[in-house]
């Protein structure tokens, strides 16, 4: 049996990435190249949340917000 990944640690890194991407998105309001590329990064982060974070947060009241903006 292969060892299961440590999803809590993975989720910690995903949340750090998300925090940075959301900050970038906010800073990019006057900078289309930053704003729009960050939107794509946030969509990818959402895919990682679907793959990892939603399972980590199974016992918490809400899963990750449905939409990244």
């Amino acid at each position, binding site marked *: 049996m292969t060892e*299961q990944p440590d999803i809590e640690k993975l989720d910690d890194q995903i949340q750090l990435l998300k925090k940075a991407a959301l900050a970038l998105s906010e800073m990019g309001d006057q900078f289309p190249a930053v704003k729009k590329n960050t939107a794509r990064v946030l969509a990818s982060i*959402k895919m990682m949340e679907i793959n990892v974070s939603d399972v980590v947060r*199974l016992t918490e009241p809400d899963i990750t917000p449905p*939409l990244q903006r």
Partner: protein
Amino acid sequence: MISEQRYWNPVLETLPREKLLALQLKKFKSIFGWAYENSRFHRSLYDKAGITPSDIREFKDIARVPKVEKSMMRCIQCKDPFPYGDCLCLPLEEVSNFRQTSGTTGQPVYQADSWQDWDWWSECWAFILWAQGYRPTDRVFIPFGYNIFVAFWAGHYAAEKIGCEVVPGGVLDTQARILKIQELKPTAMMGTPTYMLGMAETAKKLGIDPATFGIRRITCAGEPGASVPATKKRMEEAWNAKVFDHAGATEIGAWSYECLDQPGGIHVNEALFLVEIEDIETGAIIDEPGRRGKMVITALDRMAMPCVRFDSKDVIEWDANPCSCGRTFRLIKGGVLGRMDDITKVKGVLLSPVAIEEVVRSMEGLGNEYEVVVDKFGDSDTISLKVELLPGNENNIAQIEAQLKHQLRLKTNLGYTIGFYDLGKLPRYEVKARRFKDLRKGH
């Protein structure tokens, strides 16, 4: 090495069932709440039924949520905002992709996706392709007419996501595609069963044996063929490749996949979708294996135009056995068995055209193409089957006909008039075939 990993997601694909169900319930509540809060169409539907997101506490509550039918979508799309109508949950400026259904069952439905949704589409397909053995070393040829239909678009992006080299075989005719395959030596390919068989036939006409191309795996979609054993066998022999099934739809997403173990069924991606099987007569939810019903499905993470309890009209049944691949996602036995719209009563007997395909393609001496015509003379239904005879079988017609009639009687409980045609005389199809014609409606 990442390529040696069996699962795209080693956590979700092996999640214990109780956790998987808890995840589905939680995600259902979330998407139901999203649709309720953001789509005027959904809010109105749920208000009429007297149900709100706070009413969903346990799994059995989900069945109280009204289903959405395709016909409703067509009505909604007469309203603003153009062209999606009031089920759109995001401002129009956040829509990044337009697709539409093929219109096989009527007026096409328009589908909006945000960038996140589009990334989600390719994520669904990444589960499929990884499970079928696609790896970064693969060169994937996609002989598909990149257009307004979703078809293999997401397969293209998922192959890129995995790290494969993708060759878009877009605006080429079949012969040019075959020559491109011969030149580039791709290792994998995607297409409808009809087109995969048609391409092989064209290659042979050109004097090229497609079995020598080096294609190792083919992913099929759009028709049930890759789960019809006789059709799968013909494709695998023609291309000398493993052929895998997958089922998805524009309004739903890519919800299922056959894995490398080819268990005679397709896994539901239960981390991203909730599949319910509903008894066709009573509407009760079927949880036990072996009973056929129609699929009601929810895409748990699709945002711009949510798919919540969509009445897909696909006929399916649960498999009793777990898969040897180790995934905990349940199996649909034999793939999608047909659509409610295709299943029709002939001479008082329920007929699924897929059963005819299995018989025709398991017969030696017959080509891949066939056509079924149901008609009415007076008060009686008639059913005729047109098939193509492979060269060299001209002296065996009587024997083939007797065998064909016998097998059709066994598999469908009906008697047929058989018409034999020369190879190449019946219509060929590029994408989805229309081999079943019911002329009774015109009478």
